[in-house]
């Protein structure tokens, strides 16, 4: 770990927190870790999670060390950059599967988790990992060039979702029924970028029946990318094509039963994949941490799979 993790600037998270001005994001803003209150920095226990109690003690020990003005060997920190408002991946209440994964890593490393919160948008890697605010982000495509990826720890796919009571069956982008349906897809932006299903539909001439939902959404609302799943449940669109983990988590939480079907084909030749390997990302050059994390991902594979199952992450 870098020496930065040993310093005593315990309010740095707050300074680097871009979302601190956001309003309804987190009721009570319970952090599970420590936060700065009127009486200064204090550890906070959340729920009955024994790990968290352990973390709290660790932080207190660290604080004690800092208070003395010199460092006896402090406990290791696993510094993670994450979006505070993006279930099922992460949120500030530590409810996402990547939050759980961070705990798992920390347990293995005998470290405490320390978050820097930043919306995962354009500039995320630049403002977090590359700016030295953290050492790892917990999800990136395995072919991602802006960070050094670990080995993949899951592979998921885009899926079709639709109401079970809609009386349709959609398996493939080539199903003729698609042309008669209102289809929701997520949009990323211009400059040649977009979600693979958006491209796939346009390539097949489906444009007039396609409804776009920006993946950014309204950041003042909880988990903005989830709006497209809610739109299917409400009947605003007949079917949506959504990244697997998002669908797997939010579909069962709607008031009506939704069908989740992995898209076919897995790749639109020659270039358009719907299936992606997902890794963790460390700073380029940080091969030491990469190797450590690779080891954990290998050793803890059953636990990680069970965790992904609990969150309904479709895997292929």
């Amino acid at each position, binding site marked *: 770990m870098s020496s930065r993790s040993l310093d005593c600037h315990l309010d740095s998270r707050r300074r680097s927190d871009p*979302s601190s001005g956001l309003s309804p994001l987190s009721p009570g803003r319970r952090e599970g870790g420590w936060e700065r209150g009127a009486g200064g920095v204090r550890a906070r226990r959340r729920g009955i999670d024994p790990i968290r109690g352990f973390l709290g003690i660790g932080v207190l020990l660290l604080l004690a060390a800092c208070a003395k003005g010199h460092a006896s060997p402090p406990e290791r920190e696993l510094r993670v950059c994450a979006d505070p408002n993006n279930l099922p991946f992460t949120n500030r209440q530590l409810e996402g599967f990547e939050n759980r994964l961070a705990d798992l890593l920390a347990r293995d490393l005998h470290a405490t988790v320390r978050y820097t919160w930043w919306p995962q948008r354009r500039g995320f890697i630049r403002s977090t990992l590359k700016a030295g605010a953290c050492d790892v982000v917990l999800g990136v495509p395995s072919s991602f060039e*802006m960070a050094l990826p670990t080995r993949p720890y899951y592979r998921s796919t885009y899926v079709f979702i639709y109401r079970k009571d809609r009386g349709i069956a959609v398996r493939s982008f080539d199903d003729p029924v698609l042309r008669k349906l209102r289809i929701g897809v997520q*949009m990323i932006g211009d*400059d040649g*970028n977009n979600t693979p299903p*958006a*491209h796939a539909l*346009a390539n097949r001439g489906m444009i007039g029946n396609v409804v776009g939902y920006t993946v950014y959404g309204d950041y003042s609302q909880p988990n903005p990318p989830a709006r497209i799943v809610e739109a299917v449940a409400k009947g605003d669109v007949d079917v949506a094509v959504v990244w697997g983990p998002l669908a797997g988590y939010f579909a069962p939480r709607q008031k009506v039963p939704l069908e989740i079907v992995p898209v076919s084909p897995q790749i639109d030749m020659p270039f358009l994949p719907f299936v992606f390997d*997902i890794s963790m990302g460390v700073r380029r050059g940080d091969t030491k941490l990469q190797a450590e994390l690779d080891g954990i991902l290998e050793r803890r594979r059953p636990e990680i799979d069970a965790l992904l199952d609990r969150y309904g992450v479709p895997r292929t």
Partner: protein
Amino acid sequence: MRSSKEGSFPSTRSTKKILGLVAGGLALTLAGCQTRTEAQDQKTPKPAAARSAALTGARMASMPAGQDDGQWLMPAKNYASTRYSELGQINARNVRNLKAAWTFSTGNTRGHEAAPLVVGSTMYVVAPFPNYLYALDLNNPGSTRWVYKPEVDSSAQGVACCDHVNRGAAYANGRIFYNTLDGQAVAVDAETGQEVWRTALGNINKGESITMAPLVVKDKVLVGNSGGEFGVRGWLTALDAETGEIAWKAFSTGPDKDVLIGPGFRPFYAKERGRDLGVSSWPPGAWKTGGGTVWGWISYDPALNLIYYGTGNPGPWNPDQRPGDNKWTCGIFARDADTGEARWFYQISPHDHYDYDAINENVLLDLDIRGQRRKVLVRPERNGYVYVLDRGTGEVLSATPFAYVTVSTGVDLKTGRMREVEAKKTGVGKVVREICPAAPGAKDWQPSAFSPRTGLLYMPHNNLCMDFEGVEANYIAGTPFVGANVLMYAGPGGHRGEFTAWDPVAGQARWKIKERFPAWSGALVTAGDVVFYGTMDGWFKAVHAVTGQELWKFKVGSGIIGQPVTYRGPDGKQYVAILSGVGGWAGAIVAGDLDGRDGTGALGFMNAMKDLPQHTTKGGMLYVFALP
């Protein structure tokens, strides 16, 4: 090719011709070419400048025409947006003696694109996010009279595109008006620094930000939004300068009533006529997130009572997902300054393929075109053409390439349509090489200057091409997506920037200066026949307005992407001021500490800027120069 006998109407030229011109273009014929602007109708320097200022509308409400009071009240200097100062104490003969007089640090390391303002004995400087406004006492150079720190949403920097720039403020009636990155317009008392009003206009949580400098016209403050990348719908709004209340708001997409298109709308070309084109030129509903943001420059013609501004590119869909012309993106609006009603519109890039936002400056001039005095709007455009339009009607009088262009072969002046090159159109998985100009255009936001003394438009611009190849995986909000692997690189000649003196009547360059990096700063020209601009590697330069000869330069602390201004100080001396502080889209590699090994960073711009960190570091600093 550079015959200057008369104001012959230039037809659209081939790229090759222009390149030849670039190679050969120099000063000897310049004397001859001075016959074609109105300024040269009267030969004696002083009245010429004075009269031309009046005729070009280059005057300000607060100041009699031709009487430059030595202040700088809006980024473009005047409503005609000429960035021309009548001050001549610093001139082509003595500018070599120019010395740094004083400096001021903003303590901000993001890109500094703003123009300082000078009102009386105070200078006003807006810094990048979190957008502090500094009032500097010119009687005690460098000392601060007050600092206004707006309440801004700190999440703005997580969602804003393209660094955290601000392009400046405007002064009127004792107030400084400007915008904050998180989408607010503010009015601040120029004397006390007290906030007079603050109006929330954009929703930063939806990706809507504001980076542009407002323009104050009569009793209204005009403001537009940024954020087309996030599916924001573009608008321009007019606020009551007294209260900050919204007087009108004109969207760039959607039904006519939202766009303020009514019976008074008379576009020149048939392609802009029809009901609700802002809806019907899109797939169903796509206009609601269609872009066309208004993040550039506004001009004003008091005689016609029209304002002029451009709209950004369509989004957030890719071109194949938004068939149609995608009105009213990528074009120029003329609107009634009081009501906002549209008078005409000209779409420069229907169905934009290349991110060619049409938000550049509109320079309002009266020029002799084919023997006739015409009230024109000159627009050096991202797509590589200088457009000369009749500003009363929206007719394109000429559209002439000033840079290397491969994606189009010219503009059909009968229909107003661009002749596009099919082979250069992009698509996912499709390899397209040598797309010129690249996405930032032959010229981005960096504003040009026009001298009525030379009849030339001085344009800082880019010489960049790009390749689209293969597919790259990326990740936003936990969602993997694909984009083209975009790489930008220097155009012909191997240099990435140019500074061009352009004759808008002849449609020809008179001279060009090659720059290592994109020329991303604004330009300034004075009655002393000196042109000022800055480079991204940190040289602030003075060149001869007639010949382009370099007369003076000074290495500042950080690369320059700001806008130079000049003013008469309380001591009666002429000063020249510039903000240094590299950043913006082009300079993100330094301001954002991006990794140069990833050429596709900053949407592919990084590849062209890899060596910038060797030439400059970040840090905002104001430099003020004067003769000893």
